[in-house]
């Protein structure tokens, strides 16, 4: 499994390579989740998002999540890739995906990958509005 994991933090996410990266002769199913910048938060217009990371730790946590997923389900390939820096509306910011013999394993693994990334991986997102900026989830 090790050689079949791609874990990266990048400046720009290239969505066009994902099929080739997850494709595998033993995989009949490929599932991908892609997160992008949304224009509105609570009816307020978001101009852009800014992501920063503690990269060495983020990569370690992302790898742990990929390993956990491949221990829970039989996966042939896994990718977890997150972007950093300033991102505009509709730009991709995160992509996770898995491929497996049948669709069930890759669907459930894909959900685990993104949900766990959001809980644990040290990446921070700031929403830039017209008159203010807010670190997301910082305060209750």
């Amino acid at each position, binding site marked *: 499994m090790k050689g079949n994991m791609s874990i990266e933090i990048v400046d720009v996410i290239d969505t066009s390579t994902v099929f080739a990266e997850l494709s595998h002769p033993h995989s009949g199913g490929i599932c991908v989740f892609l*997160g992008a910048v949304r224009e509105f938060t609570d009816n307020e217009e978001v101009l852009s998002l800014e*992501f*920063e*990371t*503690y990269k*060495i*730790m*983020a990569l*370690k946590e992302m790898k742990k999540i990929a390993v956990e997923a491949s221990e829970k389900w039989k996966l042939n390939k896994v990718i977890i890739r*997150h972007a950093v820096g300033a991102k505009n509306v509709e730009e991709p*910011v*995160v992509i996770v995906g898995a491929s497996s013999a049948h669709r069930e394993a890759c669907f459930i693994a894909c959900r685990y990958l*993104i949900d766990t*990334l*959001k*809980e*644990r*991986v*040290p*990446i*921070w*997102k*700031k929403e830039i509005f017209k008159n203010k900026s807010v*670190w*997301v*989830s*910082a*305060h*209750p």
Partner: protein
Amino acid sequence: MEILLFGIAKDIVGKSSFRFDADDLVPTSVSELKDRLKGSFPEFGKLSSLAVAVNSAYAEDSDRLREGDEIAIIPPVSGG
């Protein structure tokens, strides 16, 4: 002892890292570090959560801190 700061923690302190020097009382555990931070910067007490990483892994409150460890303050994460 150098402490790395990210996200809102960087904004609260106003820089991306700071040092406890030998003359200061250097915190010896994760919980002591958190208490010191909240004492010096009450904004830390208002966050949804506050974690500390030692050598790039999440640490428990009872974990000891040693000179030479890479220590980072992890405010609530919001990737994805």
